[in-house]
């Protein structure tokens, strides 16, 4: 039992039997060096992932700067016309759009969004969800598979384009589920070390038409509003995608940096153990030789 605890570094039991002679008390040199090599490889991988996401982040941030006024602009109308979600009744149908991506290893980006949505779903199970990116689907599927209407995949490999957003907006508009209002949940990028979960409003034609301040707007017919809503949904989705992509890359950068640091610590510890073991092996062999010689004389 003691032996097994001491040699827990060993990968397989078969190996343990084969070299049982050597391992008394301490892990063998070979297993330690194997482990050391694998940790070094992992560190190389996390380091290069960090470099890649740093480059992608620089680009995403540049593009986000261009997209910010665009997103702010598309939000203005809903704020200034004071469009609000209708009171909750039997007929209100809410739609949430979760902006995540297909790629993981980026901290709490996806789980944060899903946690938020899950809290709302627990309170009101009639809310339907559209998952953008496989990660949010994987998280929400376990408990709320029935609430997921649609999943958009292939998100996050390339930088988001307006065309992606308009395709998604088109699908949302053609849904059989006639939502009355909803939210786009996304990660708002603040700085390299910080992001927060934010939402953008989505409304149906009916909700906009019943807004109290809509009367001050001149020469509107429902056609114009419908077209306007479609385009503004696309531009808000585009903006949310850009924000999400930038936050994701920056978060992946931090996560990979931390992983490399942890791997570095592990390498230090393993190297120390490796050297100590080697020293012990040498000492033991010396003792064997000397005591052998002493017994002979």
């Amino acid at each position, binding site marked *: 039992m003691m032996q097994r605890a001491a040699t827990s570094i060993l990968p397989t039991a078969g190996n343990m039997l084969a070299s049982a002679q050597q391992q008394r008390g301490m892990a063998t040199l070979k297993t330690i060096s194997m482990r050391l090599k694998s940790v070094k490889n992992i560190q190389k991988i996390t380091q290069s992932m960090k470099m890649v996401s740093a480059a992608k982040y620089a680009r995403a941030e540049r593009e986000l700067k261009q997209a910010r006024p665009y997103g702010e*602009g598309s939000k203005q109308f809903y704020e*200034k016309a004071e469009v609000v979600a209708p009171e909750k009744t039997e007929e209100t149908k809410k739609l949430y759009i979760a902006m995540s991506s297909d790629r993981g290893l980026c901290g709490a980006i996806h789980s944060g969004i899903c946690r938020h949505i899950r809290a709302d779903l627990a309170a009101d199970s009639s809310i339907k969800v559209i998952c953008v990116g496989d990660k949010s689907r994987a998280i929400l599927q376990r408990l709320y598979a029935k609430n997921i209407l649609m999943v958009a995949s292939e998100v996050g490999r390339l930088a988001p384009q307006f065309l992606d957003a308009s395709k998604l907006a088109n699908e949302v508009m053609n849904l059989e589920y006639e939502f009355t209002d909803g939210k786009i949940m996304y990660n708002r990028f603040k700085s390299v070390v910080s992001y927060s979960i934010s939402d953008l409003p989505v409304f149906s034609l009916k909700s906009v038409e019943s807004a109290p301040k809509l009367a*001050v707007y001149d020469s509107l017919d429902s056609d114009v509003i419908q*077209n306007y809503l479609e385009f503004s949904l696309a531009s808000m989705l*585009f903006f949310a995608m850009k924000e999400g992509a930038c936050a994701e890359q920056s978060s992946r950068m931090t996560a990979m940096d931390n992983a490399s640091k942890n791997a570095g610590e592990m390498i230090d510890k393993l190297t120390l153990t490796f050297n100590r073991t080697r020293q012990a092996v040498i000492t033991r062999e010396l003792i064997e030789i000397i005591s052998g010689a002493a017994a002979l004389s």
Partner: protein
Amino acid sequence: MSIALRGARLLTARGIRAIQSRGYSDEMSFTLAAANKVFYDNVSVRQVDVPSFSGAFGILPKHVPTLAVLKPGVVTVYENDGSQKKVFVSSGTVTVNEDSSVQVLAEEAQPLDLIDASAAREVLSKSQSELASASTDKARAEAAIAVEVAEAIVKAAE
């Protein structure tokens, strides 16, 4: 004496604030942005002419609030110093809010002087042939939109 002085100071302070707030409402804060580029971000300008599906119209400060859908065409911005800037937009929306803020959001926009007229004509002839050979309703609608945009570009570039 001191009370009178303070009163006078209060009065002037209020007077200045009143002038400032009036000055602000005579300006419009104009945003012209596209998915690829930002042209103006809450900048005060004199006038903006936009093409829309309900007809081209000019926006001055204190325009009545309205919504409109952009048509492919040229947005002309008259800046405060009198200079003009022309930007070609493909499609998008125009929002004029109650507080004189104007947002023109385009799917794609380019300054007019960057547009190559001969390349535009090429695109026009290509999309016209696509329209002629389109078989399904959807393809025909897509080609018709391409022709409409190309025609507007050629017209704008000439």
